[in-house]
């Protein structure tokens, strides 16, 4: 794999993510792609706040970031997956995200069968060792028809 290929892949995936209306509404930005790992950023914005008394970002917004990041990790998996949809996604919130900080999700599609992709992910805000949240998810696998 050359750097040229990686840069091209990142550009295509970046266009893909910004073509999804809800991801665009949340302001999601693709950070990196490597093998079966995807990193994505959600910049801090006041309209995404879920706890009015503290200014902490809504859990639902973090879930949406994680779902998008996980789905992209499935699509970039070396096996030719042409489409995917979330079957199940569990998120554990370990601590509130720091107010004013961007959240970065890192998703790894660690196993793919004929019909199911398994993904785990963490979300971080750059503060300390403990992630903000972790995710375990399963996705559908759609493949191009064999020629």
């Amino acid at each position, binding site marked *: 794999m050359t750097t040229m290929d990686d840069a091209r892949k990142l550009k295509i995936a970046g266009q893909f993510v910004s073509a*999804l209306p*809800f991801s665009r509404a949340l302001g999601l930005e693709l950070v990196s792609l490597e093998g079966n790992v995807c990193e994505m950023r959600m910049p801090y914005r006041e309209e995404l706040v*879920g*706890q009015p008394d503290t200014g902490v970002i809504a859990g639902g917004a973090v879930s949406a*970031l994680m779902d998008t990041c996980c789905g992209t990790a499935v699509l970039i998996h070396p096996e030719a997956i042409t489409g995917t949809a979330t079957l*199940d*996604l569990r998120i554990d919130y370990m601590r509130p995200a720091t107010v004013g900080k961007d959240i970065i999700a890192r998703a790894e599609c660690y196993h793919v069968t004929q019909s199911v992709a398994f993904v785990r992910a963490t979300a971080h805000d750059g503060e300390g060792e403990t992630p903000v949240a972790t995710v375990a998810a399963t996705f559908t696998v759609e493949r191009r028809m064999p020629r």
Partner: protein
Amino acid sequence: MKRPEPVQVVKERRDKALRRLVEAVPYVQFMGIKFERHGDELTAVLPYREALIGNPMLPALHGGATASFLEISAIIELSWQLLWEEMESPENKGLPVGDHLPRMPKTIDFTVDYLRAGLPRDAYARARVNRSGRRYASVHVEGWQDNRSRLFAQATGHFLMPERDAR
């Protein structure tokens, strides 16, 4: 014997309390979620907008939009039950609820089960609090679109309840 309150006064008080709760949360406004109230029962409504789409090819609602909708439904239901208790308690009856921001629970974990693709039309959700203790609550949420019995997603979550005296 004390006469019952006029129905309009009761309704106005309850609607105002619900409006205050919902309008206090920026992300609820961002999502465009509304709440319909019948007595103490709430139904969350997610009016369809193009911005909620995840897969423009189908098109289908974004999984993250569905997750957000169900989680907001659960949190507002729990907060509403706390608010209702406060509002309808014998010592507060007939008085407007205080000016403090609503006490809101924090999500510990949330699991969404995607049953079918979310269609590009309005979605509805209702949350059922299966257990609500002093510290923890367990909530189940059902989401549907055209048919109440054909759910497009459901979810279960655990929540950390706010301190009773926190204002």
